[in-house]
């Protein structure tokens, strides 16, 4: 086997040194009754070429070649081959968690740079070295808020990503935290501040909103910060589309930001691996979960980096740790650091600007079709909920014939919104792509019998 660096003669020689006849003798401590007495029934072995052929065949059974307008927490953005080639250096790829600082300075300095970039993006004072993803970062942020306030009630916007919400429910349930929902305004698509005002009380640990929210609409972060903090609660802001921070004001007033950094240089990869982030105020750092790299000096005064504040973590504090997280998403965080280094201040701004422009162009083109209107009036970045004259499912079925993955149907998440879909347009969609989407949607309408004068019942205000 090509991965095993020993010949049979070498195995024999080692056995001789151990005074053993066979490797089997080393397994003598496993009782007979516990042993597997037959070969594993698994496919393989495969050579390198066979492995590649197998995965190419699987890849061909997916949606390669389709133009996708799906977002909803996973975004397709421009990535440079430079970052991926750097990422595959064995010194990054095949190193362990940097507990041994003297021979891990590369990883440690990169984490420190990642933490800095995340602070700059989110407007927060400290950021950790990564969480599993945006959803678990949101759940951990909510639990952190409960620890910090000593309160047990979470108020969660209905416009939080539904899968993030499910994750919060899972974790909160085991800790006995109470979860209540805040409605969103049917007209603007923003979380209803009046609902928040009515629900917040002295039992509230955190108000959790997302911006841009699941409906693509930006939330009024300062207003919710005021409402939460006025009652001694914390504001948690989740961010699923981090590229928005190239154009959108950062949630600096939030107490904790829980972010998914996937859109900053990571492939969609069928949902993972991604990189979650928790960023917060300096005064809350000792209740923050996850690893942290800190700057220090060695005996000769040279700058160096170490993992620090480990007294929060499981390997030191065991059952009293702030979280059970150990392995995080370090290599993904490194990919994000490389991507942002390349993109830089101008590139990020330009990318965000292109997203704004292309999404608006797509909305204009689609709104030329009968019965298509924006579903909500609130400000949006690169995702927009659109109202259609037929069910989104039926329209998408038609679009798929033309190798287009259309807007995400909102019906499964919000039963009242079956004719609404979430469209995501990024800098990777060319004008030609968008024109093709509009033309294909027009053809879909024709085959679904949509009349030329058809309108929607309640067009949103512009």
């Amino acid at each position, binding site marked *: 086997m090509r*991965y095993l660096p020993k010949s049979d003669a070498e195995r024999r020689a080692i056995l001789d040194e151990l005074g053993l006849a066979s490797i089997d003798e*080393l397994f003598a401590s496993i009782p007979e009754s516990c042993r597997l007495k037959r070969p594993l029934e698994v496919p393989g072995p495969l050579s390198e070429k066979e492995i590649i052929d197998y995965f190419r065949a699987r890849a061909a059974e*997916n949606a390669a070649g389709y133009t996708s307008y799906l977002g909803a927490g996973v975004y397709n953005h421009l990535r440079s081959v430079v970052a991926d080639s750097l990422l595959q250096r064995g010194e990054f790829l095949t190193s362990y968690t940097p507990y041994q600082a003297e021979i891990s300075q590369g990883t440690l300095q990169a984490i420190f740079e990642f933490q*800095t970039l995340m602070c700059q993006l989110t407007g927060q004072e400290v950021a950790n070295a990564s969480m599993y993803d945006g959803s678990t970062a949101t759940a951990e942020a909510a639990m952190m808020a409960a620890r910090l306030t000593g309160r047990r009630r979470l108020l969660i916007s209905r416009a939080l990503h539904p899968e993030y919400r499910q994750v919060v429910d899972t974790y909160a349930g085991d800790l006995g935290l109470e979860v209540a929902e805040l409605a969103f305004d049917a007209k603007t698509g923003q979380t209803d501040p009046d609902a928040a005002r009515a629900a917040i009380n002295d039992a509230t640990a955190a108000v959790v909103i997302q911006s841009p929210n699941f409906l693509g609409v930006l939330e009024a972060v300062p207003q919710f910060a005021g409402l939460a903090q006025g009652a001694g609660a914390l504001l948690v802001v989740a961010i699923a589309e981090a590229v928005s*921070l190239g154009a959108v004001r950062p949630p600096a007033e939030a107490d904790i930001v829980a972010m998914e950094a996937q859109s900053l240089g990571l492939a969609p990869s069928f949902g993972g691996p991604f990189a979650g982030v928790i960023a917060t105020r300096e005064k809350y750092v000792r209740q923050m979960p996850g690893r942290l790299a800190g700057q220090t000096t060695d005996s000769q005064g040279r700058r160096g980096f170490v993992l620090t504040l480990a007294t929060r973590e499981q390997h030191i504090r065991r059952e009293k740790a702030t979280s059970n997280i150990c392995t995080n998403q370090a290599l993904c965080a490194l990919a994000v650091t490389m991507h942002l280094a390349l993109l830089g201040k101008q590139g990020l701004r330009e990318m965000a600007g292109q997203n704004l*422009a292309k999404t608006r162009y797509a909305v204009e083109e689609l709104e030329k079709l009968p019965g298509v209107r924006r579903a909500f009036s609130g400000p949006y970045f690169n995702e927009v909920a659109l109202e259609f004259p037929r069910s989104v499912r039926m329209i998408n079925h038609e679009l798929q014939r033309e190798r287009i993955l259309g807007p995400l149907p909102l019906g499964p998440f919000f039963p009242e919104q079956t004719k609404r879909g979430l469209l995501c347009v990024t800098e990777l969609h060319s004008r030609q792509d968008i024109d093709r989407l509009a033309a294909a949607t027009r053809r879909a309408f024709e085959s679904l019998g949509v009349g030329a004068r058809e309108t929607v019942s309640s067009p949103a205000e512009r």
Partner: protein
Amino acid sequence: MAQPMSRATRHVSLNEAMLFEKSSPGKRGMELPPLDVPAVDAGQALGAEFVRDPVEGFPEVSEIEVIRHFTRLSTWNYAIDLGMYPLGSCTMKYNPRVNEFVARLDGLASEHPLQPAELSQGCLRILRTLERILLEVTGMDAITLQPSAGAQGEYAGIAMIRACLASRGNPRKKVLMPDSAHGTNPATAATAGYEVVNIRSDASGRIDMSHLAEILSGDVAALMVTNPNTLGIFEHDIARAAELLHAHGALLYMDGANLNALAGVARPGDFGVDVMHMNLHKTFSTPHGGGGPGAGPVAVKKHLEPFLPIPVLVEKPDGKLAWDARRPQSIGRLRAFYGNFGVLVRALAYALAYGPGMVEATRDAVLNANYIRKKLEDVYELPYQQPCMHEVVFSDARQRKNGVNTMDIAKRLIDYGFHPYTTAFPLIVTGALMIEPTESESRQELDLFVEAMRSIAAEAAETPELVKTAPHSTRVGRLDEVTAARKPVLRWKPEAR
């Protein structure tokens, strides 16, 4: 000060500033295709209250500077690709390159998790095939690939135990674990709302069965056990422990961190385990990447299947695969989407490369650990004498007499060109040296390691100061961790003018 060495030699390592210190206005490392639709003004599109200025302090560097920056940083790291990485319980084995290649294929890396299932059959088939292989290796009945890492797998497992017991009327209060347990075990039990109770280890380093029998009660939900345990010793009473637990209505959780000692040899499902996680970034070779991403699938017996996290992968009558989220007894969702898919692709590539031959990897891993035990047992104290499995634990008892502890020896190992072993863990061995060579080391590499360890033992006796002040050959010396924690500097800031 440093001694001549056969394996490692110093070479020039380049200094490199922080990204932000290399920045100057107007530079960039990446360009976008020109905008082909009318530009919009961000302020007008979003409204004044929502728009931001360019990100303050963000780096501005060119492509070649980015290349050199990260290449230089990379040279400051040790890595499996450079040599043996003997971290106990971490299973730092070779990370095959073909796995990286296939995970990046167009049609896999490009796929969106919310695209229709009929256009995701290739991804789902990959997941299904991996599920089947992991069930065969573990001897369990059902599985979720969703957990992002071992600790999240533990959480899922304990949450399922809680849900199962709750469905029988009482979730109970306590989770038992041996004092040799990994730190995530108690942290997980606490996250899932349980009180942690430690069980003593007996003189052989195994769970003290009489202590277990003594503290078992109607309050106990589960025992969490790592097998082989963190001393590299197989818990040979595991089946009896399972019976005992089951008789008290409790369940047996196995931490599969050390599955590399068992794959193809013994299956947890055959010795009474009810639920277990495995770390694919250990046994199944996915790269550790400086701390992740990993994957921590959880396999369960039939009676725990209704509690698996949603969604569950199911096969329809027509043979097509789909996600089923309507499972009323589920513990819920652990994370968005379906897990670290890219990591799962790599794990499957690894499993397919070996096939049934993965037992050969297991056998070589155990052989290597015992070779090291044999070659070092005359110079380092071996607190538990029996043959080990995939890892061996020594103590620094002999070296401590000269004021040299396990951390000093570990740091000195760096000067010899090796990554340190795991220090001071498991906690039940004072001054532990926990060494796991894995199957990926050749005889030559093992011999170099043995030579280094023996040489350090001699130094500890003759020139202890040399060991206590190690490492001597690294870019930086031992770093001031106390100041780092007391006055944390956690981000770069421009120098005050």
